[in-house]
């Protein structure tokens, strides 16, 4: 059995409260635990995309697509560590695409919270997987790791507006008794409403990027 990790001082809901205060008119994409708390705590915003039900690990890819299609908007994508581990390659994909308007927030609680708090394969024990180091090595432009609420409160507004891609790793407490996501309208309906809100605005969309690197990437 892996050893339990030390209790992290940030509660997920407190971290999300801060994000809600500083997001301004940014797109916020949530999934799994962050989706559960986001819909419980906040009134719906037209630029919220709650990725529920999800394909675990695919939420950052959705956020990347939105960011590329809507380059004038800031796109903040929230993902848990368990989800990110399912698709770590997305860090390289995002870094290669170089979306300046993209922010990835990793809520690292070391556990599969939704299924009862089982540790992820890399939580506890001697190995402490470093998501921030991984994002930095993948090529994210700005990477920050935070493990207390005061720092997050102080820095959140600045960090989410840095030229990206940005990766913020927040150590949060697991809360396996939080339960599932509350009942929501059908995902298709919510997706269509979100798309209409995004596309109904005057924001420039999907211009061709002439600055693409000519060297092969894959």
């Amino acid at each position, binding site marked *: 059995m892996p050893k339990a990790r030390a209790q992290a001082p940030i509660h997920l809901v407190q971290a999300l409260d801060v994000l809600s205060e500083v997001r301004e008119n940014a797109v916020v994409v949530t999934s799994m635990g962050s989706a559960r708390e986001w819909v419980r705590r906040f009134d719906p915003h037209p630029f919220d995309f709650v990725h529920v039900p999800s394909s675990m690990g695919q939420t950052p*890819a959705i956020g*990347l697509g939105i960011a590329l299609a809507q380059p004038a908007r800031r796109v903040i994508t929230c993902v848990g560590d368990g989800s990110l581990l399912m*698709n770590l390659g997305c860090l390289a994909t995002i870094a290669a695409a170089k979306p300046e308007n993209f922010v990835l927030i990793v809520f690292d609680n070391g556990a599969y919270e939704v299924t009862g708090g089982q540790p992820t394969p890399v939580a506890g024990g001697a190995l402490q997987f470093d998501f921030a180091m991984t994002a930095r090595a993948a090529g994210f432009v700005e990477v920050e790791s935070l493990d207390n609420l005061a720092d997050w409160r102080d820095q959140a507004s600045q960090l989410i507006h840095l030229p990206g891609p940005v990766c913020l790793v927040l150590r949060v407490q697991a809360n396996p008794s939080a339960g599932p996501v509350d009942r929501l309208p059908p995902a298709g309906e919510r997706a269509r409403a979100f798309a209409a809100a995004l596309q109904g605005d005057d924001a420039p969309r999907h211009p061709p990027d002439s600055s693409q690197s000519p060297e092969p*990437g894959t």
Partner: protein
Amino acid sequence: MWTPAEIRTHLVDMGVTHVTGVPDSTFGPWFDELRTSSEIRLVPVCREGEAWGVAAGLHLGGAIPLVLIQCTGLFESGDALRNMLYDLGLPLYAIIGYRNYLNRAAASDSTLRFTEPILQAWAIDYVLIESPDQIGRLKDHHRNSRRDAVPGVALVAEGRG
């Protein structure tokens, strides 16, 4: 199949703004062409399942994405494809390379056994493109997919023929 310059022209004609996927032996030169295109943005991904998520986000943001993967990548894509096409209900379109289809008389490639049954299992409307002169068929299928807001796949034959 089509030359890199031809496929770029065809995709521009179809209104595609972004191509996302993973190259195979047939599509590799197409990726090289698209990488330098001023009309279409190429978004390479590390694994094919990701391409459906990227395409979903692009679609939600108002772009016209195309997923470009080999049939082996279709096999890998299952849960992502299910979520984007059926949970979120997004009418995404893909060109999928049908590995060794043109060598099917001699090939023992198991992809030949599973590719079409898997597309049928996912209830995706697809069209088989066996030669370059069937480009009109592909364009019609893509146009109808967009008109009806339903997912679609063009299964493009690969191999030496």
